[in-house]
């Protein structure tokens, strides 16, 4: 090797080599570290247990006793599907004269489906069209991924809304006028919608008297009977927080955006819908979510 000069040559060589090695390892480190993070995050996507959870929900949906376009308890499933691209599966939409309604309630609780109340309602189980996004799905209007990312159809269905609006839980309900709560224009309509959610939440938690004492302005007249019940204040606080919470929080939105669009030509089963299930694992002091999806023939 050519000598630059006689003095300080070993130092210069070492410096050059060390800078070179450090640069390479920094590049490798910054490239692989996020990869490890995203791999660990996706560990809970569509795992074996999750697929079986989705399977049993699929069986309930495909049964004759589930009313697909149900219009129960002040929700209009058909409108939700037409405007937002999904329906929330709830056990109250299973025929109450069928044994599957009770099985549904026991099953969703045993499967640890996220956000279910004791009656098997308000669960994080979403039925969507088979295609959930992409240019093909936009012909169906609206595509589910757009709703999750804050864009859904305008009230007149002419196009998608202008600004991003992340749907909140009370916005799934329908006003007495038939308008979806997501299109509520004034405070009065918004309060009516929140009250509908609160009533459902209180009943689901077994606090029917709270639902009965809910006033039009959202306040609750706290009688002695109500105050004597355990955890009343906590339940009121919980339901109010839940009504304002997003239907698709970031961890769920990540999963839905991770899924492919499912173009129909790739799958020959003839299914028209999909079910997406979120499970919250709480046994043995765990607390983490897993996600799964399965096609539904209905």
């Amino acid at each position, binding site marked *: 090797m050519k000598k630059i000069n006689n003095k300080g040559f070993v130092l210069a060589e070492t410096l050059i080599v060390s800078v070179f090695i450090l640069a390479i390892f920094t590049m490798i480190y910054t490239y692989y570290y996020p990869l490890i993070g995203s791999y660990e995050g996706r560990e809970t996507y569509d795992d074996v*247990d999750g697929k*079986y959870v989705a399977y049993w929900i699929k069986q309930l949906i*495909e049964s*004759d006793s589930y009313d697909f376009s149900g219009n129960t308890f002040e929700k209009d499933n058909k409108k939700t599907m037409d405007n937002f691209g999904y329906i929330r599966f709830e056990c109250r939409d299973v025929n109450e004269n069928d044994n599957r309604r009770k099985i549904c309630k026991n099953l969703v609780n045993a499967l640890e489906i996220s956000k279910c109340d004791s009656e098997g309602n308000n669960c994080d189980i979403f039925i969507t069209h088979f295609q959930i996004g992409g240019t093909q799905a936009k012909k169906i209007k609206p595509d589910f991924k757009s709703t999750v990312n804050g864009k859904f159809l305008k009230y007149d269905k002419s196009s998608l809304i202008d600004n991003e609006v992340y749907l909140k839980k009370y916005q799934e309900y329908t006003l007495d006028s038939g308008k979806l709560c997501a299109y509520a224009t004034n405070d009065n309509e918004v309060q009516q919608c929140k009250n509908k959610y609160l009533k459902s939440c209180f009943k689901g938690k077994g606090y029917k008297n709270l639902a009965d004492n809910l006033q039009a302005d959202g306040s609750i007249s706290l009688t002695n009977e109500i105050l004597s019940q355990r955890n009343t204040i906590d339940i009121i606080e919980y339901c109010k927080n839940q009504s304002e919470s997003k239907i698709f929080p970031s961890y769920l939105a990540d999963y839905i955006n991770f899924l492919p669009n499912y173009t129909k030509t790739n799958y020959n089963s003839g299914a028209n819908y999909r079910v997406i299930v979120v499970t919250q694992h709480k046994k*043995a002091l765990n607390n983490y979510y897993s996600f799964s999806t399965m096609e539904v023939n209905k």
Partner: protein
Amino acid sequence: MLNNKGVTTIEVLICFVLVTIISTSLFSTVSMFNDKRIEENNKSKIIIYNNTLTRIIQKDFITYGIKTATINEKNENGLKIITVTCNLKSGEQRILRIKQKFTRSNIHPECNNEIYIDDSKRYCEQDNYDDEFMIEYGSPDKIIKYPIPELGEVIGKYDDNLKTFVPCTKNQIKVSDELRKKDSLTDSENKQICRVLKDLEINNLIINISNEETSDDIESRVLNIYIGFYHPELGNRYAINIVSPIDYPVMPSSKNGTFNFEFNN
């Protein structure tokens, strides 16, 4: 006059320092990746075991359907055995048996012939001194054993001074092996036995049938099987979790009155 060719001492020292810094940082990174590799390897073994068993059991429950199920629990000298007997709609029977024994009795509440160390800790005197975990499944005439993955073990004994289990030396293991051949042991001999403590344990068992106690919902019961594992590095996150409705009504359109499950989308 001294020769100008060569290097100075300071240059050499600086070079050594630089090389040391680079080596140390690279070593710690490589070591971290190596630990990660071992952890992922262990995780992979547990997950493969869980998935294999889950698929075998769920295949029977889904294809044939459960007609009735009973759960039985017994203890034999510190060995806890839970047996789930499922009568399938096809007329066949399936048995799931989970065996759990801890040599460290803090976690193991039911123990015959206990020896008390002090008020807070006790360990079991038992015929077989080691941890034992096993899952068995199959038809009554053909039960297959599915031993849990071997992810390491420690051979140790209880130290009276430290009040905890410590690894045994080679000599202690030798003495222990000799003592194990004896039919009965004194208290002091019992304390010299080295026990096998497995790293991976079956830690949590939650096996029940929902609404079993009420007769009202007899047709809406759900069998719930949760077999939780524990490993010191991986925690208690991994488990076999099987949920299946009992006597689920089959739709008229299903083939031969059975269900079909495929891992497609």
